[in-house]
């Protein structure tokens, strides 16, 4: 990876020189242009090294061949054929489709819950908390869960939800249930719960940011026009918070689609997800197969994001 990055370095550095021979330019204009390229160079470099190169490598490797003990740099589409193996058989969904459906289900559930909770929290902080100091304090409270690592936050659910955990013990102690509820832990429920817990803050922050920019006189104007609270929310606040909703949704969807840790820990290693498939292939050193899966996942996530931005633009027309 480093080799490729280094070999493309001079290309960026040379860019200013490329404009130099253009004859009609004065020395001053040329200097200004060179400076502009120079100013853009650091960010371009970061992008190149940390984004373009790894992505290109993944794409390249996804077309390589492999056997039990080595990767063979020979062009093949076999990895992609493997990903979609059996998918043309319409009678029964193939593994990939079933895995994607399961991941999409988590994604949709998590999106709905984080959106509703995130919007509500952001609305409360932005519109019902008057003082800026209090807003800031409540905002910091929202970030407290991030003071510990993801895994610790997930694991902390286990003593709560387990078969003999706090929830079951309490319910049995109160006599509400006779035998422990089985599906609390290592189930779809616990996976979605953990996802919502981990990702809601990614909805709160951008939605709050959009809401904070809404001019308060617009709310008064809506009230003056005879709008009820709900009508104001739906016709003024939601449309103006849409950029925040879109950004938050992109965060949540990309995080959930690529996740393998949460599904693993909270699903008791029994639930499939796209990320988990890739991780298993990587630990088996089937890197080209993992790369092909990653490229397909990337395509799927990008399609979702494009579809979402389309939807939000369309809504604007109503």
């Amino acid at each position, binding site marked *: 990876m480093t080799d490729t990055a280094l070999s493309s370095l001079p290309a960026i550095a040379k860019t200013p020189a490329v404009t130099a021979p253009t004859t009609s330019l004065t020395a001053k204009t040329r200097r200004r242009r060179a400076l502009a390229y120079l100013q853009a160079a650091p960010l371009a470099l970061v992008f190149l090294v940390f984004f373009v190169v790894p992505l290109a490598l993944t794409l390249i490797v996804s077309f390589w061949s492999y056997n039990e003990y080595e990767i063979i740099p020979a062009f093949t589409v076999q990895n992609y054929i493997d990903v979609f193996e059996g998918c043309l058989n319409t009678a029964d969904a193939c593994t990939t489709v079933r895995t994607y459906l399961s991941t999409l289900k988590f994604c949709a559930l998590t999106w709905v819950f984080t959106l509703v909770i995130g919007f509500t929290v952001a609305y409360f902080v932005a519109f019902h908390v008057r003082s800026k100091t209090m807003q800031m304090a409540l905002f910091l409270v929202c970030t407290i869960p991030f003071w510990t690592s993801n895994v610790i936050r997930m694991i902390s659910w286990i003593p709560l939800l387990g078969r003999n955990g706090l929830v079951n013990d309490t319910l049995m102690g109160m006599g509400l249930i006779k035998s422990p509820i089985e599906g609390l832990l290592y189930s779809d429920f616990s996976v979605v719960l953990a996802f919502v817990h981990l990702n809601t803050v990614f909805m709160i922050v951008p939605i709050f940011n959009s809401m904070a920019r809404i*001019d308060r*006189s*617009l709310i*008064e*104007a*809506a*009230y*003056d*026009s*005879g*709008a*009820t609270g709900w*009508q104001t929310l739906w*016709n*003024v606040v939601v*449309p*103006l918070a849409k950029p925040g909703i879109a950004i938050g949704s992109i965060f949540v969807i990309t995080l959930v689609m690529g996740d393998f840790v949460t599904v693993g820990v909270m699903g008791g290693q029994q639930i499939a997800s796209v990320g988990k498939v890739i991780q298993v292939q990587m630990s088996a050193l089937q890197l080209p197969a993992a790369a092909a899966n990653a490229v397909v996942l990337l395509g799927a996530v990008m399609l979702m994001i494009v579809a979402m931005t389309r939807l939000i633009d369309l809504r*604007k027309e109503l």
Partner: protein
Amino acid sequence: MDVELIRLTKRYGHTTAVDGIDLKVRSGAYCCLLGPSGCGKTTTLRMIGGHETVSSGDVVIGPKAVGDATPAERGTAMMFQSYALFPHLNCRDNVAFSLKMRGIGKTERRAKALAMLDLVQMAHLAERLPAQLSGGQQQRVALARALVTGPKVLLLDEPLSALDPFLRVRMRTELKRLQAELGITFIHVTHSQEEAMALSDLVVVMNGGRIEQAADPRTIFERPATAFVARFIGGHNIIRLPDATEVAVRADRMRLGAEAGPGAVPARVVSIEYQGTSVHVGFEADGLGGSGAAALTAVIDDGAYAGHPLALGQTVPLGWDAAAAHRLSA
């Protein structure tokens, strides 16, 4: 509809923004609330419109006290100082907003909104977003939005303050025309005495949460009730007489030199401003301002001034028609 304020009061903690004011605005009048910033005029307007709770007293619109009624129930509509147009809606949908909130169908509300935009000469820009309009155009749209539901009382919060001077005069004419055409009550908050004079049937001069004077513009100018009113509307000299009473004399009724009359005092010329049709001459006169020198202004017709020009530092006798002196209440 008639609007009546009865002992209307607004307190914020220990400060009193509006201090028990009484006012009656008859139906179809153009009323201006005039005063410096912080005098309580905007708070009063917002209480009439139902955007501010009333600490004590009543707002009566038409036959009944409105209490906690919503703006729609009161029959008022407000035009906000910043216009407060919805940035995500085009002009037509901005105007149609309140109709949509009332559940009126799309075709009908769009037709009504277009008719209203036509009234303010904005129908050709109906599809534009507010950000694509100039300040004056945004203002017209805001006006159309306020008028679309057929309010009985239109409340305007400093509607012209964001416009440039030329546009301000034009929009002023237009507001007056619309008010005459629609025949509804307009209550307009402003800090410009010129605007208040030009538009109103009833000028309400406010200061420190109280009404100093409420009268038609001519009475306000001819017979200002207090020294504050006389100072705020301008064009007056406030003179303290030897018997400690104060009188207001219009600056254009001051007399100079030979015409000054028997009560004249010597005054020193401190400024001369040429204004086209008239010349504004500033004087300092000992003995007219209680203690110290009084700053007085005389507005002299340009022809008369040309006949008897003055020089800075010159001392001339300065007096006024006794009939032009209007006694002020303390």
